């Protein structure tokens, strides 16, 4: 169980006893069209890696392969501890994917329901408290705002208590201010996880990522990883952050033109 309140310090990437993720030689082809070829990427245990790329470059496809939802044409995705990845991944899609017929707390415990395991409402309530939605446990998703729904999705992801978390542009539908709030929460709550997050927002990447990688070109390749110094979540007016954000913006624009 990784839901551990005692560990309040920010762990430096790679130091926590968490498995990492290794992507090697990954290619994806739809028909005769190569989406990406020969991707290599390592996410260390406890590291928060952000993958950036323009629309349609193949980010979601890559994440779905890691999640075991799509099959790659070639290449492998493995865990650094040698055990299989399946069943140890929590996935957050491009929408919040809350089931509208379940209440908020039932959505948080969805994994247990689907696997036919015993549901733990106390733990679910505790997690809802951490995303400040304790009072809305009995509400239906349709009664919540977009930001609240996204927070429920985070609680659902945490309830799975899996070491790996994959997130596909989870906050792209939120307004700038709500997005910043949910980013803070994400950086704080997912500390003890190995995270691969996808976004097309350079600011988001710089605020919550330990390491940033850009996917660009046709077929897409991964660029050199960029390390962002300092603890997350970073202030949006941090000097280093602003510098890297500008740099990223330039890479993305150049990649798009090419």
């Amino acid at each position: 169980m990784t839901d551990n309140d005692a560990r309040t310090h920010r762990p430096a990437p790679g130091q926590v006893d968490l498995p990492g993720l290794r992507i090697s030689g990954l290619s994806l082809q739809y028909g005769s069209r190569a989406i990406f070829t020969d991707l290599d990427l390592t996410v260390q245990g406890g590291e928060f890696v952000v993958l950036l790329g323009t629309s349609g470059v193949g980010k979601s496809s890559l994440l779905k392969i890691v999640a075991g939802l799509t099959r790659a044409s070639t290449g492998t995705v493995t865990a650094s501890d040698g055990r299989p990845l399946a069943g140890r991944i929590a996935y957050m899609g491009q929408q919040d994917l809350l089931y509208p017929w379940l209440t908020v707390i039932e959505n948080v415990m969805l994994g247990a329901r689907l696997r036919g395991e015993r549901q733990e409402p106390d733990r679910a309530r505790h997690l809802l408290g951490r995303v400040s939605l304790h009072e809305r446990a009995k509400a239906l998703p349709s009664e919540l705002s977009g930001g609240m729904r996204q927070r429920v999705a985070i609680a659902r992801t945490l309830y799975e208590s899996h070491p790996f978390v994959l997130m596909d542009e989870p906050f792209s539908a939120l307004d700038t201010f709500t997005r910043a709030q949910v980013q803070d929460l994400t950086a704080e709550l997912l500390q003890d996880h190995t995270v691969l997050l996808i976004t097309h927002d350079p600011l988001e990447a710089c605020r919550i990522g330990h390491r940033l990688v850009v996917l660009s070109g046709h077929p897409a390749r991964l660029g050199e990883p960029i390390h962002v110094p300092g603890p997350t979540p970073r202030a949006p007016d941090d000097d280093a952050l602003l510098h890297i954000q500008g740099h990223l913006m330039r890479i993305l624009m150049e990649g798009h033109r090419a």
Partner: protein
Amino acid sequence: MILTLARPVVTFVVLIGAWWAATRLASIPFYLLPQPPAVLHALWQQRVLLASATLTTFSEMALGLVIGTILGSLCALAMAFSPRLQRWIMPLLLLSQAIPAFALAPLLVLWFGFGMASKVVMATIVIFFPVAAAFSDGLRHTDPGWMDLAHTMEASPGAILRHVRLPAAMPAFGSGLRVATAIAPIGAIVGEWVGASAGLGYVMLNANARIQTDVMFAALFVLALMTVLIWTVVDRVLRHILYWAPDSNGAAR
């Protein structure tokens, strides 16, 4: 709430008024279009006959609705569970729609007799298709995101069907059932026209043959009233089941 009740009443009163005005102003002969008071009179005069006929037709419709819905749902579920089964059943379903239900009515009377059974079978056939088609459509088109999420949570196909595809298909099932309920009288009435000794369709046929247009209209009125009532009950039940689907709750408020 008051508006919900008032609206159909206003519609009804306006329609009756227009009817009355038309028969008086254009002086349409009685045997073509009776005036509303005559129909009201027939309604009272024939109340015993109409009540027992209504009971018969109601039983046929209700039984057909229940059996047709159960069979249609089972068929949709079977197709959802096994894609191979779907490839076999779907063409049969479509083929069954190529034969009009009316054409089957005489055969059904021949096979199941003049009693209620042939009408129940007729109503079942009419109701089966919209339920099966809409429900199976809903079961097949589950939001891929919901499916992805369930797959990453290691859900078995059975659990996905029960906890994801089934609830997600309920709005589609609901619209199929609403359509089926609205056309349920067709099955029962056509069955009675072809051959019966009871029911509203039988009363209508008899009245028509004797040019008792007022009785004809009285039976028609009772049939319409009954259909609206059944539809309202079904609609209420569906809204209860679909408490989470915002459009089905907001539609007629």
